């Protein structure tokens, strides 16, 4: 492939230290693909300070006669003068506002779409940036019958121009060499310098592109195919059908494939915990390592398969160009509630788990829309709520499976409805400003890059582990400690029961029953005496109007770690054993739970109240951690917690009191 580096002084001495390169370009120009091709696995993602916009940095090691490079991947921007968070970040980095200004600006342009892409290059030149222009997707341009004269373009701009195909790596070696030499190079003056003011930039770009582009070939045939596909994929009926089929397939793959590594992770950490208990002497340190640390790490790592797989699949889909069309299909429905069409993927993902759901809001271009989606995503009924729903609907409708099924479906509906109403409410209060009417570039349909998807999945997984993951481990350990300490002596009745079980003449069945009763008493005493139990008793009056006693309040508190912990807490309190599966024995034991005054814990009105509470409440500290990270602010995590908890309390209160007033026990 011919390169056009003659305009720079290739003989000038390279900079010995790492060259700092800012990578910038319009969205859909293959910028991420080029970044991945340059930096590979040596990249990390972090939020730009104080914003929800992520920024990636990577290092390219010295090779092929070129020195090391530090590459900053700036957000995709169309126009440096546009007032948007992404543009402000790009301008800040280019001006050196957040550290050292880049030595070189690598602007990537789509060879199929030169006139519009050259506007950004012109703006950068007008700002005096030292530019290298990567002319990407020259293969696709060729298929469209477009030939770009890179030599002439380089001469007219006065900057090196490197034709390449980032997806296949074609042209990367030349680019490395050019980037290495660019800081010390002096090129000829541009023969067609851009206008100093933005007025006339588009006309300048048009004229420049026309002067270096030779057209002819099957471009119109490709356009016709694109138009046919667009008509189908954005059609009110067929577009929706295609969307449901594609999303159905995506989530089927996600659920089917993620379950295997998740089960493996859980089993491995369970084995590890057992091994620690076997190897270490009994005591507080062993409990901390086996249950606190190993359990905490397991509770974090178990999210990884879903996060990595989701980002892998979404990146593949995004690369094809389909997601922009899908956003329009859903925008018709979601915009009525102040949410953008892009919000559908995060909201659907949140049905698996709110964590990847919130992380996938990075797809949403507008910061306000992204924030609105983050705030309402946890209303979606995630998989951690399933055991809670199963338990409470079974308690509610013991002999009526159809009614239990309807109540189960109603939980999903209530969660979705709460999300939409909340989005509408927030849109007129804390997130003022309506969702913008959608304006999106519809990128060319392309074959996705597997390598790109793999690197993105890896990158997002590491980002999760290094930021939210560490906090989640700490939270798990603290919650375990609150539930396990202080240790209390078992009641005297426990020793009596065990003595009775070991007495001569007691049948094995009787001994087992006595032992089980002792275990329940011991566990209840341990739970009640723990910090979590004591806090539960203190807070019980706040939950009494919802029909909860102190035991249910403890269940609510411990399930802040993860909602499914509610089932194991209740099974500990009811049966003396932590059960996560809702089997008949667990349901029977929990149904038999009594309050201190002997009345049952779960009446129909209490179970219904608890069900509504768990549908609406923000019972997930890891989610709050991710919200804080993604929004760059504790404020929004606090709003999420306060609003969801308040709404859950009010809804459960109204239901409980209403049912009682209607005569339901």
């Amino acid at each position, binding site marked *: 492939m011919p390169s056009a580096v003659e305009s720079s002084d290739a003989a000038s001495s390279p900079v010995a230290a790492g060259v700092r390169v800012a990578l910038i370009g319009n969205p859909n120009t293959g910028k991420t693909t080029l970044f991945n091709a340059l930096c590979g696995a040596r990249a990390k993602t972090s939020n730009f300070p104080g914003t929800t916009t992520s920024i990636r940095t990577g290092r390219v090691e010295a090779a092929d006669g070129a020195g090391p490079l530090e590459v900053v991947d700036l957000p995709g921007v169309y126009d440096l003068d546009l007032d948007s968070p992404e543009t402000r970040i790009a301008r800040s980095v280019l001006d050196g506002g957040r550290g050292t200004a880049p030595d070189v600006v690598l602007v990537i342009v789509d060879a199929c779409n*030169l006139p*519009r892409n050259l506007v950004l290059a012109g703006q950068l030149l007008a700002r005096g940036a030292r530019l290298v222009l990567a002319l990407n997707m020259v293969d696709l341009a060729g298929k469209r019958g477009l030939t770009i004269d890179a030599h002439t373009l380089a001469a007219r701009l006065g900057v090196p121009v490197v034709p390449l195909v980032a997806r296949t790596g074609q042209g990367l070696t030349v680019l490395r060499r050019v980037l290495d030499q660019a800081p010390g190079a002096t090129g000829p003056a541009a023969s067609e310098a851009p206008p100093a003011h933005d007025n006339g930039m588009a006309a300048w770009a048009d004229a420049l592109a026309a002067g270096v582009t030779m057209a002819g070939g099957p471009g119109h045939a490709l*356009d016709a195919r694109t138009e046919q596909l667009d008509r189908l994929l*954005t059609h009110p009926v067929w577009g929706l059908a295609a969307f449901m089929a594609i999303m159905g397939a995506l989530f089927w793959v996600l659920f089917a494939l993620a379950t295997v590594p998740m089960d493996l992770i859980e089993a491995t950490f369970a084995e590890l915990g057992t091994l620690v208990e076997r190897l270490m002497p009994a005591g507080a340190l062993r409990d901390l390592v086996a249950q606190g640390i190993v359990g905490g790490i397991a509770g974090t790592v178990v999210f990884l398969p879903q996060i990595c797989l989701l980002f892998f699949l979404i990146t593949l889909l995004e690369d094809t160009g389909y997601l922009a069309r899908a956003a*329009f299909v859903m925008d018709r429905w979601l915009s009525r509630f102040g949410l953008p069409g892009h919000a559908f993927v995060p909201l659907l993902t949140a049905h698996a788990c709110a964590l990847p759901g919130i992380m996938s809001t990075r797809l949403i271009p507008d910061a306000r829309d992204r924030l609105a989606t983050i705030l309402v995503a946890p209303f979606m009924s995630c998989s951690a709520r399933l055991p809670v729903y199963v338990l409470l609907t079974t308690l509610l409708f013991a002999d009526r499976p159809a009614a239990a099924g309807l109540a189960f479906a109603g939980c999903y509906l209530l969660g979705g409805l709460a999300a939409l109403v909340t989005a509408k409410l927030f849109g007129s209060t804390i997130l003022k400003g309506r969702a913008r*009417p*959608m304006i999106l570039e*519809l990128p060319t349909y392309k074959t996705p890059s597997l390598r790109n998807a793999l690197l993105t999945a890896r990158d997002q997984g590491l980002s999760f582990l290094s930021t939210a993951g560490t906090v989640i481990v700490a939270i798990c350990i603290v919650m375990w400690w609150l539930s396990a300490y202080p240790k209390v002596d078992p009641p005297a009745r426990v020793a009596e029961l065990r003595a009775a079980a070991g007495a001569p003449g007691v049948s094995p069945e009787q001994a087992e029953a006595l032992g089980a009763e002792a275990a329940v008493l011991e566990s209840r005493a341990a739970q009640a005496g723990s910090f979590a139990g004591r806090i539960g008793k203190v807070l019980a009056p706040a939950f009494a109007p919802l029909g909860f006693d102190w035991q249910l309040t403890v269940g609510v508190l411990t399930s802040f770690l993860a909602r499914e912990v509610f089932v194991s807490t209740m099974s500990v309190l009811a049966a003396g054993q932590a059960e996560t599966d809702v089997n008949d024995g667990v349901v029977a034991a929990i149904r038999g739970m009594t309050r201190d005054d002997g009345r049952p814990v779960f009446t129909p009105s209490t179970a219904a109240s608890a069900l509504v509470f768990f549908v609406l409440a923000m019972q997930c500290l890891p989610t709050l951690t991710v919200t804080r990270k993604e929004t760059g602010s504790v404020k929004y995590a606090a709003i999420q917690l306060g609003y969801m908890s308040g709404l859950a309390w009010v809804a459960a209160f109204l239901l409980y009191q209403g049912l009682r007033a209607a005569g339901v026990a």
Partner: protein
Amino acid sequence: MPPLIPSSDAASVPGVVPLTAVPVGAVATLHEVRDAESRPVLKSLGLTDACVLRLCKVGDPCIVQVRSTRIGLSSAVARCLFVVPGGTDGK
């Protein structure tokens, strides 16, 4: 959502029609964007003053092509674009 189009008659300027009145496949020259909020975004995508565009699809989304860029517009935005039919398709 409040209407984005001012109440003045869009077709008061001779030859100027709403984008949505142009037949699919026709070429037109952009005359005016009557939505100040969307104007900068449209400009950044290449929908600049007097640019030539081709209407690819009407409805929601409305799809236009400017040079090689295909742009999807929600119907609310499309209703704010006023064009003069005709022009040289520059793609």
